């Protein structure tokens, strides 16, 4: 049975592969227009730009590599190339054979070229069969007020309806009530396992190195899987193909420098971008000698090289390296991600696009005491992914676009080793056994236009997850006590999970300005994060599904109404969703998740469900732009062994939330922006009684998450001022001034119940809040 299943998997894939390779290159009387859409100023390819045939109303969007392909009948056509923030270009063409058209779009604010091109508004959001999908361009993100002036894409996506931060100032996020480990975060196809710096206050993404950010809240494309809640697809810049350029900034907490340019003009480009915080650089001036030796900083380094070998082949190398380092006289700690991806785009024909990726991703941490005496020790943990994927896009005809591919990942987990570092050490080595697993996926999906008003997107992803030796597998009794363990030899495939993940979406156009969309998806998640606190720490480890832990599964349904007003200048949408999660993981009371070989015995498995409605009004163009959203959402869990089996609110259940993001262009030099967020407080467990134990007050608690923190709200302001252009100045400068938490709301980070140390019977509640009003200033420069 097992063999049969695997065979089916591969034959399905081979069928899809050979099917399109050998497909008839052209139906009679039809030809294909293909090419890349670029930014005219920098040569960067544009992701998601629209190519639209105006009379047939047939269109396609560029893929993540800027490529498009459109099959049309012979004859004359008007093609419209458009992208948000760029001037739309129309192109007349008389189609008599297959042609390649590369288009360079001018940025709207560019001073390049005096050609008068009208900027058109489009109804892309209404016609695309995409739901719960939001693309943010890096420019929009740059103007959103940021904590300490550090522009951060994850903080920006937390302002979207259905996305919540996990705690104040944190880059952890919850999508539609899910856990933060249910988001797949990829940077140029490489998984980023821990996207946070400095206890989560900053993310690993340096905005200067990025081009495009897309969040899929529900309708995750069949090409991706392995997480239940969302996909955050982050793409790095390719580098300026026209000229060498440097941009940088000096901010309140960090400085940045990005260099980019052509190595071989219009063929090979590079971008290298670095960022480092520097609070610790002032430590040497401290009076206290111990403080002078402290270290507390993080850095990021992004590198990308793109080479256009010829019209049919392009290669990309992207790398990321980031690390946080803390050190004082007692302890040192480091953690960070390393990712690398090598990609090759190949065009078999103007209709068949292939991307091959080889990807490496690593997250590791170490901590220890550097004292060198008998107490000195080192503790380290890491996980690595080695990943190969093939992704085909077959632009079959103007009504069908087929995507299919195969992905295999080899996961390595080293959950933790601790040992003394000195020869006189008092500690024996303690090592948790390493775990290995293979994760496979193959998929096939089609986007099919049926008539003028209906577009369907349907697909199937087949996944398998195999535990591979060498490894130690512990068995537990019904009370979660370990009974025995089985040791498996090298390359012993000792357990396999497999499953089907169907995806379906439709859009039905009611008229040119409105549509109804719907979606269903089934997702499966084979790895999870052992994180028991709301914000988490870098020490939290990822662990694979094993015979003890079945993969988490989710079914999500959503339905939406999209309507554009005032000739597409205002976009509105209403989306409702229902999500059912099976095998949801939570942890027993007082779980011990670190350095515990029986960690699996601390897990409890149950089910969950969430539902909600998301309203959004968005205006992308004009002097005043931005969005306002409201979301009502609930998220529940039911686990037999937690809260006496009664339903309780999931950790990130926030029923009401409002986001306001407004940006106002005062004039060519000055831009002002503001954000206001409101969210119900997180659910919490509070005491409903107490006992005196060991001369201390022991709280007796309510049901799990029966109470709620006070509501969270905050106003941020920012203004950016470009320096006047002076002919003698070679550079362009820009000041960014921001105020975080402008009306100084004391939002509770945590609420504790304490007793008076002088009289333990006097008890009271104490709230801790993190950020009061925080101004920040950043100076950005480019030349």
């Amino acid at each position, binding site marked *: 049975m097992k063999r049969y299943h695997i065979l089916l998997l591969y034959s399905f894939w081979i069928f899809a592969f050979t099917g399109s390779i050998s497909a008839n290159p052209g139906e009679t009387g039809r030809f294909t227009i293909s090419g890349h859409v670029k930014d005219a100023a920098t040569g960067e390819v544009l992701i998601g730009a629209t190519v639209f045939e105006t009379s047939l109303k047939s269109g396609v969007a560029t893929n993540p590599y800027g490529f498009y392909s459109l099959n049309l009948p012979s004859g004359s056509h008007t093609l419209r190339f458009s992208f948000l923030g760029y001037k739309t270009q129309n192109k007349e063409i008389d189609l008599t054979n297959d042609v390649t058209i590369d288009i360079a779009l001018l940025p709207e604010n560019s001073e390049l070229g005096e050609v008068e091109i009208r900027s058109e508004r489009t109804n892309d959001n209404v016609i695309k069969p995409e739901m719960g999908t939001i693309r943010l361009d890096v420019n929009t993100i740059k103007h959103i007020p940021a904590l300490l002036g550090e522009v951060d894409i994850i903080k920006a996506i937390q302002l979207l309806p259905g996305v919540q931060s996990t*705690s*104040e100032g*944190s880059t952890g996020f919850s999508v539609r009530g899910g856990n933060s480990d249910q988001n797949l975060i990829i940077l140029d196809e490489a998984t980023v396992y821990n996207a946070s710096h400095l*206890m989560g206050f900053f993310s690993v993404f340096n905005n200067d190195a990025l081009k495009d950010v897309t969040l899929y809240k529900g309708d995750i494309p069949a090409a991706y899987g392995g997480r239940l809640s969302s996909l955050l697809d982050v793409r790095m810049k390719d580098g300026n193909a026209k000229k060498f350029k440097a941009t940088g900034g000096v901010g309140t907490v960090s400085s940045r420098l990005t260099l980019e340019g052509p190595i071989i003009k219009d063929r090979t480009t590079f971008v290298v971008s670095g960022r480092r915080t520097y609070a610790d650089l002032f430590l040497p001036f401290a009076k206290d000698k*111990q403080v002078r030796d402290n270290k*507390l900083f993080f850095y990021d380094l992004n590198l990308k090289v793109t080479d256009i070998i010829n019209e049919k082949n392009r290669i990309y190398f992207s790398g990321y390296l980031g690390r946080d380092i*803390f050190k004082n*006289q*007692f*302890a040192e*700690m480091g953690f960070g991600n390393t990712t690398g991806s090598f990609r090759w785009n190949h065009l078999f024909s103007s209709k068949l696009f292939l991307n091959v990726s080889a990807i490496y991703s690593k997250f590791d941490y170490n*901590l220890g005491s550097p004292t060198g005496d008998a107490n000195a020790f080192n*503790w380290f943990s890491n996980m690595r992914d080695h990943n190969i994927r093939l992704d085909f896009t077959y632009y079959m005809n103007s009504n069908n676009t087929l995507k299919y591919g195969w992905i295999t990942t080899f996961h390595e987990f080293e959950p933790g080793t*601790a040992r003394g570092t000195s020869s006189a050490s*008092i*500690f*024996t080595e*303690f090592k948790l056994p390493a775990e290995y697993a293979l994760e496979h996926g193959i998929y096939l999906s089609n986007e099919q236009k049926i008539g003028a008003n209906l577009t369907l997107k349907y697909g199937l992803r087949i996944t398998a997850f195999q535990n591979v030796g060498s490894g130690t597998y512990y068995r537990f009794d019904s009370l979660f006590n370990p009974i025995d363990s089985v040791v498996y030899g090298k390359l012993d495939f000792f357990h396999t999970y497999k499953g089907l993940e169907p995806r379906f979406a439709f859009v039905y156009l009611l008229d040119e300005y409105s549509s109804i969309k719907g979606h269903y998806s089934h997702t499966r998640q084979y790895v999870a994060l052992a994180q028991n*606190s*709301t*914000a988490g*720490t870098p020490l939290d480890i990822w662990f694979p599904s094993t015979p003890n832990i079945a993969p988490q599964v989710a079914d999500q349904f959503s339905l939406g109404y999209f309507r554009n007003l005032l000739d597409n200048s205002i976009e509105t949408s209403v989306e409702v969703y229902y999500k059912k999660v099976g095998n949801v993981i939570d942890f027993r*009371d*007082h*779980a*011990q998740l*670190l350095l515990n070989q029986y960690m699996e015995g601390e897990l409890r498995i149950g089910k969950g469900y969430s539902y909600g409605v998301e309203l959004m009004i968005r205006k992308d163009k004009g002097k005043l732009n931005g969005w306002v959203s409201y979301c009502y959402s609930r998220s529940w869990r039911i686990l037999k062994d937690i809260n006496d089996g009664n339903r309780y609110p999931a950790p990130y259940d926030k029923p009401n939330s409002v986001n306001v993001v407004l940006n106002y262009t005062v004039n060519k030099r000055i831009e002002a922006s503001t954000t206001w967020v409101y969210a119900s407080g997180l659910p*919490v*467990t509070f*005491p*409903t*009684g*107490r*006992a*005196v*134990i*060991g*001369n*201390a*007050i*022991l709280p*007796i*608690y*309510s049901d*799990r998450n029966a*109470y709620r923190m006070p509501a969270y709200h905050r106003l941020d302001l920012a203004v950016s001022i470009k320096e006047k252009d002076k002919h003698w100045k070679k550079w362009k400068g820009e000041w960014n001034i921001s105020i975080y938490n402008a009306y100084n709301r004391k939002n*509770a980070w*945590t*609420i*504790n119940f*304490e007793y008076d140390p002088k009289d333990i*019977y*006097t*008890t009271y*509640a*104490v*709230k*801790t*809040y*993190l950020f009061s009003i925080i101004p920040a200033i950043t100076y950005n420069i480019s030349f």
Partner: protein
Amino acid sequence: MVKDIFKAENRVNGRLFRKLSLLPLMLMLLMTAVSCTERIDIKLDDSYTRLVVEGQLSTDTMAHAVVLTTTTSYYDPQAPPPVQGATVTLFDGKDTTYLTETRPGYYMTEPDFYGVPGKNYTLNIRLREPIGGHSDYSAQSFLHPVAPLDSIGMQFHGDWGSKGVWDVKCYVMEPPTVDYYRFLIYKNHELFTKIIRYWFVTDDKFFNGVYAKGATVSYFRQDNEHEILNAGDTITVEADNITKEYYNYVLEVQTEVQGTNPLFGGPPANVKGNISNGAIGFFSTFDLTRKSTITPSR
């Protein structure tokens, strides 16, 4: 906020190296710079009243106590009410010992009583009136023998903190069995670690079956007024070989007494003791070993 740091410190140290306690301290450096605390009013509901039991039996020859109280509402400004007039007995598998209520809620053995390693003890309580729907409660605990401490030592770290830190270390041949320890510290023969949050409990994960030479069991921070040590002060370390259940219980109580934050630890949860019928508290039995040393001059 400084208080929060020590909460986090204590939270971690239970099962990991004692030294790790310093880690969250650094991680929270950033937060100390930006965070503040203030009292707020939170209305809380009341749940039903439960019996609270604190009972200990060691191998010392003395009057051992079982203390009975009840839970109260969270903001109750008084000491918990004692539970009087109960019948409290200890059973060692053969003999039953009756405890006498010497003051309200305190039930004592005779002063010549002592626990014997290798025995399984049962505590039985019968209340005059039911609490939380039950009148009869019981608990069992095995008394594990302890390997005697070889010696203890003290080391002064002059460069730690603003006034230095005394580091109390113990030397012991740890047996190959899986063991759990509680360390209590006495200063000049008076119990110094009176409050449960200052107890140090550990498993033997990193020491099992080896000679632990100089494992730190306590610190005295000299910048903290009540921890100041003078040359000539007698410091005594008591090592108790406790049961696994009691070890978990102490860690859980420490966690709950110290409060929560979004970084460390899971959601708050009720602590499970070993008393039947939903009572709060624990009946623990343990063998103990003590060693003393005189604080040297620096």
